[in-house]
C-alpha cells in the first residue's frame, strides 16, 4: 500500500492560509510517486512554512531561520539516494538565507526548494518580506514598504538553478505536478509558490492572485526543457525564462520557466573524485574494522608524510 505522507499532528496555520494548499500538494505528489516514508526528507527553516515537516509522515527537520538549504545539502550529499524537499519561507530563502540560496544554485546539489512566497513575515506579525513590492502598504505595516523586491525567479536563474518554476497554492493540481517534476529533476530546483497570507497581507490576497495568474504552457510553443544534446538552445531558453520571470502586475506567469537537464548535479560532480561515492556514500560507510578499531591505514594514506 502506498505510504500515507499525512500524519496526525495538529496543523496550526490560520484558517484560509495558502500553506494548506502547499502541504496537500506535497503529500499528494509524494504519494503519487510511490515513495516510502524513508525515501524522502523535508528540511525547513523558521516561521509558518518551517512547521511543514511536522505535518508530514516522513523524516523532517525544522532547522534554523535561513539555514534550511545548508542542512538539506548536508543530508543530500551524505546520502544521495534521498529525495530532499526544502519547504521554506520567502524570508528564509531570499532574506536571511539569501547567501545560501545563491550558493545552492552554483552547487546544484539536487534539492527541491519550495518557497512559501506571501511577501510578509507572518509569524512575527506581518513585517515586509524580501518579495514585497516597493511602496506596498499592507495593513500590518506602519508605513509603505521602503525596500525594493527580490525576484525569486530571476534570482534563481541568475544563481544557476537548473529547474525554476512558479506555482499558486490555490491551484493544487498544477502545484502537485510541479513538485513531482522538481523532485525528479536531477539538480536543484526552485518552485516559487504564491501563497496568500490571509491574516497580514490584505493586498496580495487569493482573489488578487486569481485575477492575475496564468499558465506558461497555455502557449503551445512554450518549451523550457533543455535535454542533453540540446546545449545550443541554453542561451535562448534562459533568456526567455528570464523575460517571463520579469513579468509581474496585471499578469503573473506560473508553470515551468526553465528546465535544464544538461548541468551535472553536485552529487555527480563529486562522484568523479570521491571513490565509489554514489554506491557507498558517507551515510553508508563502515568506519570500523572488525576488531573495533580504525579501518583506515595512516601509513599508506599519509605515506607522503613519512620519512623512511
Amino acid at each position, binding site marked *: 500500500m502506498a505510504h500515507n505522507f499525512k500524519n496526525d499532528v495538529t496543523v496550526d496555520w490560520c484558517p484560509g492560509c495558502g500553506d494548506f494548499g502547499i502541504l496537500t500538494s506535497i503529500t499528494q505528489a509524494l504519494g503519487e510517486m510511490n515513495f516510502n516514508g524513508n525515501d524522502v526528507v523535508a528540511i525547513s527553516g523558521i516561521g509558518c512554512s518551517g512547521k511543514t515537516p*511536522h505535518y508530514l509522515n516522513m523524516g523532517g527537520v525544522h532547522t534554523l531561520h535561513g539555514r534550511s538549504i545548508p542542512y538539506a545539502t548536508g543530508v543530500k550529499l551524505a546520502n544521495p539516494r*534521498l529525495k530532499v524537499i526544502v519547504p521554506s519561507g520567502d524570508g528564509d530563502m531570499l532574506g536571511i538565507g539569501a547567501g*545560501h540560496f545563491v550558493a545552492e544554485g552554483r552547487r546544484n546539489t539536487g534539492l527541491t526548494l519550495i518557497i512559501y512566497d506571501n511577501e510578509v513575515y507572518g509569524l512575527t506579525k506581518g513585517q515586509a518580506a524580501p518579495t514585497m513590492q516597493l511602496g506596498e502598504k499592507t495593513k500590518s505595516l506602519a508605513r509603505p514598504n521602503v525596500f525594493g523586491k527580490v525576484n525569486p525567479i530571476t534570482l534563481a536563474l541568475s544563481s544557476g538553478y537548473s529547474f525554476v518554476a512558479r506555482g499558486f497554492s490555490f491551484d493544487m493540481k498544477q502545484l502537485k505536478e510541479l513538485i513531482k517534476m522538481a523532485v525528479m529533476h536531477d539538480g536543484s530546483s526552485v518552485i516559487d509558490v504564491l501563497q496568500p497570507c490571509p491574516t497580514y497581507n490584505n493586498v496580495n490576497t487569493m482573489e488578487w492572485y486569481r485575477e492575475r495568474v496564468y499558465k506558461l504552457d497555455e502557449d503551445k510553443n512554450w518549451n523550457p526543457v533543455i535535454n542533453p544534446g540540446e546545449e545550443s538552445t541554453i542561451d535562448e531558453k534562459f533568456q526567455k525564462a528570464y523575460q517571463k520571470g520579469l513579468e509581474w502586475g496585471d499578469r503573473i506567469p506560473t508553470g515551468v520557466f526553465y528546465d535544464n537537464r544538461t548541468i551535472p548535479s553536485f552529487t555527480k560532480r563529486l562522484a568523479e573524485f570521491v*571513490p565509489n561515492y554514489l554506491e557507498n556514500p558517507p551515510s553508508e560507510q563502515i568506519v570500523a574494522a572488525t576488531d573495533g578499531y580504525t579501518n583506515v591505514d595512516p601509513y599508506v*594514506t*599519509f605515506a607522503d608524510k613519512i620519512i623512511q
Partner: protein
Amino acid sequence: MDLNIAIGGPQGGGIDTSSNMINRAFAEAGYNVFGVREYHSNIKGRHSYNHIRVKEDRPRSLKYPVDIIVALDADTIFEHLEDVGPGTKIIYDRSFESSDLSQARMIMRDTARRIKERLDGAGFPNTVKGAVAYMKSQGGVPIAVPFNDVVAAATSEGPASRYFNTLGSAVTLSIAGLDKKFTIEAIKQVFSNKEKVVAENVKVVEGAYRYAAENGMAGTPLKVLPKKKRFLLTGNDGSAIGKLMGGLRFQTYYPITPASDESSILEEHEDFAFIEAEKKRLKKGGVVVVQTEDEISAVTMAQGAALTGARSSTATSGPGFSLMAEGIGFAGMDEVPVVVTLYQRGGPSTGLPTRNGQSDLLFALNTGHGEFPRIVLSSGDVEECIYDAMKALNYAQRYQLPVIHLIDKNLANSTDLVPEIDLKRVPVPQTLRTEPLPDFHRYTLKTENGISPMGYLGKDIFWMTGDEHDELGHVTEDTEMRDAQMRKRFKKLETALSEIPQNDMAVLYGPQNADITFVTWGSQKGPILDVMEDLKAEGISANLLYLKMFMPFPTQFVKGILEKAKLVIDVESNMLAQAAKVIKLNTGIEIEKAILKYNGRHMTEDEILKAAKDIYEGKTKEEVEVLENGA
C-alpha cells in the same frame, strides 16, 4: 646536540621549503626536529620565518637566543635583531648590507620604529650593516655569504634568487656539520623527485657545501643516529589524520587561517586506504570535503550529513566560529553529533589572523544562546591532535552533542616528528544501521543516562526542531516536557564525566609535590615540560597540571592538586587567564600568579623559565608576567 635555528625571508620566498629541507635532512640523519612557522597575513613580500629546534631526543619547545639565523633577505636581519646571543651565527648576503631600514617597506611601521629606536639607542647605523654590527656587539657571529656568486657558480638555470632558500638551508646544514648526502636526500623529498628541479638544487647544495668548506665555515661532522621511520606532521596534519582514522566521512569548511589547511589535507587524501585486513571486506569509499559559502553553512551542512549517520565535522578559526554560534546551539538542542575543530588565533575580530592565541576558551564554553551541553577538549601537541580528533568524533556519536576541539595556531603550524601512529589506541565504534527502529521516539525520556537512540534520516522516520520538543521531536511548549528534555540533555554531561577516563581530561606531569605547580593547556605543554627539567637542574621542583577537557570539567581532580600545591602559576596565551577563570568557576580556587602572552607569537622555553623563576624567587611583585618574545 641542541640546535635552535631561525630561517627567515620574504613570504612567498620559499621559507617553508627551506625549513622542510632542514627538517628532513636532520631527520634523515636520525635527529629529531620541532618547528613553528610564523608569517604575516600577506601573500608575497612580508617577513616570514621558521623557528626550528634539533635534538637527539624529541624537542618539545623552542628557545631564544637561537644558534643560527639564516637571513634570505635584508628584512630578516632587522626583524631578528634581538634573537642573537653569544655565538649566534648570522648567515646573510653581503649585498644586503647597504639596505636601509627606512627603505624596508615590508616591515610593519611600528616594528621599523622599534628597530630604529634600538639601533639609534645603541649608536648603530640604520642599515643591515649597522644591524649586523649591533648583533655582533651582542655576541653574534656574522657570516656573509655571496648568495648570487655561490648560486651562479653552481647553476645558471633560472634566476639565482630562486635558489636562495636551498642555499640558505644547505649552508646552515653544513655549519651544523650534517653530511651532504642527507641534505641531498632531503632535496629529493622536498621536490618530490622532480628530476630537473632536484638536479639544479643538488648543484646548489654542492656549491654551498664547497663554499662552506673553503671558507672554514663547515662544522665538525655530526654523528649519524640510527634512522627510524617517522611521520613529519603539523597540528593540522594530526587533526586530519585523526579524523579519517576516527571514521570521518564528511567535512565542511570555509577558507580561513589557520584552519583550512586541515580541510585541504583531507581533500588531498579523500581516496584513503584501508588497513590490509579490511580491504577485502569493505567497499571502497571516500571522504567528502565541501567548501561552503560561509561558516554558518559549514556547521549546518555538517549536521545535515550527521543526521544521515555519517561521521561529520567542520574546522574553523575565531571569526568563522563566531558565525557558527547558532548552528552549535541547534546541535545542542537537537542532539546532533558534530565536531567543530576550532583553530584559535589572536582575536578579537579579525585580530591577528596568522598569529597564535588561546583567547577563545570562554567563548567555546559559552557559544550560542540558551543552555545546552557540549564537550570542549583541547590538544597540546601534534600526537594529541591525532588521538583527540578520533576521540572528539567518538564523543559526538556517544553523547549526541556538539564537540569543540581546540587547537591553537602555534600547534596547527608546529612541525613535529611523530615516531608512530597507534592504530589500537582509540576504539572506533561502528554505528551504521540498516534497519529502521520500530516505534521510534528520537528524544525518548526512557533513558537513564540521558542518551536516546540516534535516528538516521533515510532509515528512520522522526522529526527534529530547534524549538523545545517532545519525545517524537515535535514542537512543544508544555512545562513538564520542557523540564524533562532540559534535564535529559544535561544528564548526558554527567554521563560523559563518569565515562571519560581521567587522563583524557587532565594530567599531572612531574612529582606529586613540587615547589611550583604550573597550570596550562594547549601548546605551552611542551615548553613547560622543558622548563620543569631546567628548574630541576637548578634544584627547584615543579609539576604541571595539564588541562585537556573543559566541559565536562574534572573538578575533583583539579581541586585535589591545587589544594595541596605550594605555588601555582597559570600559563596561557591570552590576556584574561581564561583557563584559570574556568578553574575558579568549577573549584572555587583562585590562581593568583600567571604567565601570559598575547602578542601572537609562540611561547618559548627561555621566557617561561625566566618568568617562573622571577615569580618563584619573589623578584617580581606583579601577579601577571607578560611575555614578549618573537619577531
